[in-house]
């Protein structure tokens, strides 16, 4: 499943195979995903959100608290790894139950 890190309508990163895990002790989530392409300038902006596309046109959204992108800048980080610390989930169009999401 696809996802993207967004700065409003700009796309800082497109990812695949995302995996978000909630820390039981805090409302924070950890995200790990494979990068399709990323823009480090946009990725350094404040006010980013991670938007996960789900089946049926639903989407879940989290605020991004910290973001790291590892990979080759020359290939726009394609195939690299994106890790992030996310804030509490902001649900749109679907239930958000469970502590771990594997997509």
């Amino acid at each position, binding site marked *: 499943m696809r996802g993207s890190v967004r700065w*409003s*309508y700009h796309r800082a990163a497109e990812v695949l195979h995302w995996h978000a895990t909630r820390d039981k002790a805090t409302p924070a989530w950890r995200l790990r995903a494979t990068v399709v392409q990323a823009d480090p300038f946009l990725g350094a902006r404040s006010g980013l959100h991670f938007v996960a596309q789900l089946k049926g046109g639903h989407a879940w959204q989290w605020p991004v608290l910290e973001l790291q992108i590892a990979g080759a800048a020359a290939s726009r980080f394609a195939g690299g790894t994106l890790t992030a610390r996310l804030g509490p989930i902001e649900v749109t169009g679907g239930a958000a139950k469970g502590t771990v999401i594997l997509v």
Partner: protein
Amino acid sequence: MSESRIVRPETTRLDISGGDWLLVKKRLNAGEQRRAFARMYREGAAGRLQIDPLQTGLALVLSYLLDWSLLDEAGKPIAIMDADDETKAAALDAIDYDSFVEIKNAIDAHQNANEAEAAAKKKIRPGAPSSAPSSPSPVAADGALSGSKS
């Protein structure tokens, strides 16, 4: 400390006739403005760039438009949010001409209001040069866009 020149990606909603609305970018950044210019210019005689009057309206709309409330013939929303320019252009080509002109005029008015606001801010920015630039700036090209045919 000077004010940031980064354009924050903010949106605004423009109401049009029939209860429909457009979600548009509040301002374009330099890259978006450059891409809009690239879409509205074509190479003329001797390799000189000329404004293509048939493209200026479409270029303006594509550069600002993010989403809208328009419905298709089955009453379902015409999805353009997150679509690429080609998909949005295809949707704009599919609507009736009067509606396209209305959308273009709404965005044109929005852009003109933004430019007036930016010009007023520039006048009061500390350290801003008071004299006119010695060579034509990209802002000069905006005049052609504002007065374009769709």
